[in-house]
């Protein structure tokens, strides 16, 4: 899988040069440890927008960016972050297969300068491939801040690579890096990776194996780096053996490594790993000078509290609560502005256009009561979705999300998973679909399937519009807390369901996994805005595509058979009436709720869109009032947007004081809310949003599950258990609340 990005951004390093006609193409693989800044580096060089997050495992597949630099066409291939080239995880297999089979012209090895020894373990393995390497000694500024002094010249001599200190986030050192790459591509012989000496026992065994390969399989000797192939066969690497259809036994390799094993009393894989670690450790000692007395760093200070075994989870829950409150408070003025616009000027303009083309009355109704009411009801919540995505991006970029996964590790182990599985689940707060695809970072099929089954319980952004309209109608004084309760309920039920699955479908213990905790960083505003846009634009595209499509279909279903007087007797109403009795014990057994929930299987926002269409006053019912002029509308649009922005900014500073979604609702917004208030009670409203949180994953998640696992089986299981769970929990909420006399 790859994508070609054309360089267009004037802010990219490559675009800073005049483009000349390309003479040749140089393929450069970018490899490094997770969270070493590979994607940031590529984005900075090529002006692309690969997903960047301050946590490991963001890049799952290899991705490409192509651009021209000083007459050379450069193809940068962003490989998944790996700690080694052993074939245990999918990322390692993707990275290794690419390097061995594609043999790029050069490798940019991105090394985290603040964590030299661990990163050099991968470098040592890259050198075995005998591909020219340019090392980007990245995050160099933080290393300097820590007082580290790295002797780049000594490193170049020891490894036979070019070393360039870089700070990808500030684009420092990237010109030098590109120049070094071009130079290396033009003159590959100028720097050849050194063959590191792993000790006489290993080296002599490797020499024997290399000669065995040359004699027995000369074609392989030409195709693969010989030294690397010898090591892999000595290690009995299954992946290599299967690919080459030869075994170590067939080559009498066992004979060659007998002395090695006897001398070390270990298997060859462990001996090789020790030798590579020794190289990385020795090199670090040679080139790195640390300050004598190291002060406790900020990250460690924060982590002392954030990762405390008693405070960790309460702090995570508090951070979530604060995020939701801030989301509500910041987005409210903009949401109100959007609502005023969609129910005012936008609707009037649409009506004017329809009148201008002399469209029949049914088409006018389709536009205003279908498209504007349906899509408009969803668009009103775009600000809240973007605000939520902004804060999620901030938590990702700051490094706190990785801590959240860490503090959840113990709870995840209880359900047979480890904290790494919590990362796709956290991604699910944005959208469940990429979260399903992110399960491929997990080691085995069992973990992937179990995590994918639990991901839909994480409340995605698409569910926000439903929550916001109901919370605004019934719980305005406690909006942040009620929203928080839904997200926490999702996580708690994921743990409960995980426990059930562990006892039934997925027996066994979680594999051991060491999770990396990146240092805390303040994400740049540019990066925050870019990634918020990348996450949020999806909802805008949805509004213009399938939410629009469903709104039109719902309008037809509400108006067929043609001439139907009461919406209840329409096709949609009739279907809703069939399903309504099932929902009666949950407190919302009316056809309107049932129909909306059914339409919501396409995408959860459509629940609100459909309600907007069902409850909208049919065109003509509204009183005719004097229409403002187009220019007045435009003026109002601009001034009210400015005022909404100012209010949003004020709310950021006063968020601890203000009452979000206060009772002072404006009249326009009161439309759908007032109908909801007359149809639901606070208790049935909470049961309804609980049902929306839990009931079946949307159609796109179903497709993602099918694609990721190659079968409908897991979606089938998710569908069945989620429908049952949603009904049961909503039942308990409503009937339990009624029994206790709450909110009826």
């Amino acid at each position, binding site marked *: *899988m*790859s*994508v*070609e990005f054309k360089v267009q951004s004037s802010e990219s390093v490559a675009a800073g040069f005049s483009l000349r006609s390309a003479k040749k193409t140089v393929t450069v693989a970018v490899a490094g440890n997770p969270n070493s800044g590979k994607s940031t580096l590529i984005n900075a060089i090529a002006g692309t927008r690969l*997903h960047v997050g301050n946590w490991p495992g963001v890049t*799952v*597949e290899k*991705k490409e960016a192509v651009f021209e630099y000083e007459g050379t066409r450069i193809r940068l291939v962003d490989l998944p972050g790996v700690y080694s080239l052993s074939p245990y995880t999918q990322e390692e297999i993707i990275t290794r297969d690419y390097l061995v089979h594609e043999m790029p012209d050069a490798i940019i090895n991105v090394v985290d300068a603040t964590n030299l020894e661990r990163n050099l373990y991968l470098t040592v393995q890259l050198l075995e491939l005998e591909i020219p390497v340019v090392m980007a000694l990245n995050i160099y500024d933080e290393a300097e801040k820590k007082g580290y002094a790295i002797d780049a010249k000594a490193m170049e001599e020891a490894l036979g690579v070019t070393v360039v200190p870089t700070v990808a986030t500030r684009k420092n050192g990237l010109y030098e890096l590109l120049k070094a790459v071009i130079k290396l591509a033009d003159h590959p012989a100028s720097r050849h990776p050194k063959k590191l000496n792993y000790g006489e026992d290993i080296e002599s065994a490797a020499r024997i194996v290399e000669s065995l390969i040359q004699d027995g399989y000369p074609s392989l000797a030409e195709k693969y780096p010989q030294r690397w192939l010898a090591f892999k066969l000595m290690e009995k690497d299954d992946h290599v053996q299967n690919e080459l259809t030869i075994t170590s036994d067939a080559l009498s390799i066992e004979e060659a490594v007998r002395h090695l094993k006897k001398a070390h009393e270990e298997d060859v894989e462990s001996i090789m790993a020790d030798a590579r670690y020794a190289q990385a450790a020795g090199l670090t000692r040679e080139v790195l000078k640390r300050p004598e007395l190291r002060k406790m760093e900020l990250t460690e200070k924060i982590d002392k509290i954030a990762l405390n075994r008693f405070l960790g989870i309460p702090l995570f829950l508090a951070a979530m609560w604060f995020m939701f409150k801030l989301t509500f408070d910041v987005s409210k003025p903009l949401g109100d502005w959007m609502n005023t616009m969609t129910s005012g000027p936008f609707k009037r303009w649409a009506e004017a256009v329809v009148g201008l083309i002399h469209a*029949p009355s*049914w*088409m006018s109704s*389709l536009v205003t009561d279908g498209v504007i009411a349906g899509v408009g009801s969803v668009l009103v919540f775009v600000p809240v979705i973007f605000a939520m995505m902004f804060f999620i991006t901030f938590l990702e970029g700051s490094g706190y999300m990785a801590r959240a996964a860490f503090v959840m590790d113990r709870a995840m182990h209880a359900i047979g998973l480890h904290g790494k599985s919590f990362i796709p689940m956290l991604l699910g707060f*944005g*959208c469940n*679909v*990429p979260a399903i*695809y*992110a399960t491929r970072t997990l080691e085995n099929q069992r973990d992937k399937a179990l995590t994918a089954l639990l991901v839909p319980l994480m409340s995605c952004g698409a569910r926000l519009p439903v929550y916001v309209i109901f919370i605004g109608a019934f719980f305005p004084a406690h909006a942040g807390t009620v929203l928080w309760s839904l997200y926490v309920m999702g996580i708690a039920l994921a743990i409960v369901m995980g426990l059930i699955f562990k006892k039934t479908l997925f027996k066994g213990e979680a594999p051991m996994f060491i999770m990396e905790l990146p240092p805390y960083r303040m994400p740049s505003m540019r990066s925050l805005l870019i990634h918020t846009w*990348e*996450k949020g634009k*999806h909802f805008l*595209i*949805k509004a213009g*595509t*399938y939410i*629009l*499509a*469903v709104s*039109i*279909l719902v309008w*037809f279903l509400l108006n067929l058979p*043609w001439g139907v007087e009461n919406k209840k007797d329409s096709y949609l109403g009739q279907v809703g009436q069939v399903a309504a009795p099932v929902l009666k014990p949950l407190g919302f057994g009316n056809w309107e709720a049932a129909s909306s929930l059914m339409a919501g299987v*396409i*995408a959860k926002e459509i629940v609100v869109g459909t309600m907007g269409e069902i409850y909208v006053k049919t065109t003509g019912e509204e009183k005719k009032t004097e229409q403002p002029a187009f220019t007045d509308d435009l003026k109002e649009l601009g001034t009210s947007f400015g005022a909404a922005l100012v209010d949003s900014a004020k709310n950021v500073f006063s968020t601890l004081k203000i009452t979000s979604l206060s009772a002072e609702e404006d009249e326009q917004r009161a439309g759908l809310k007032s109908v909801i208030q007359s149809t639901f009670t606070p208790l049935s409203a909470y049961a309804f949003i609980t049902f929306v949180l839990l009931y079946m994953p*949307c*159609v*796109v998640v179903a*497709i*993602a599950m099918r*694609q990721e696992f190659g079968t409908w089986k897991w979606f089938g299981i998710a569908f069945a258990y989620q429908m049952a769970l949603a009904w049961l929990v909503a039942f308990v909420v409503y009937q339990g609340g009624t029994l206790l006399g709450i909110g009826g």
Partner: protein
Amino acid sequence: MGFSDIIWMGLIIAGTLYLLYRSVWKKKGHCAGCDSQTCELKKSNR
């Protein structure tokens, strides 16, 4: 309602169903990033 209205309605419903099929099934919901497998499509559309 005349014959032309029925034709218009048929066209709108057909277009809507195609839009639904294209955006949900073919474009995988337009979900974020290459992880959603949309990159191949982007590439081939280029």
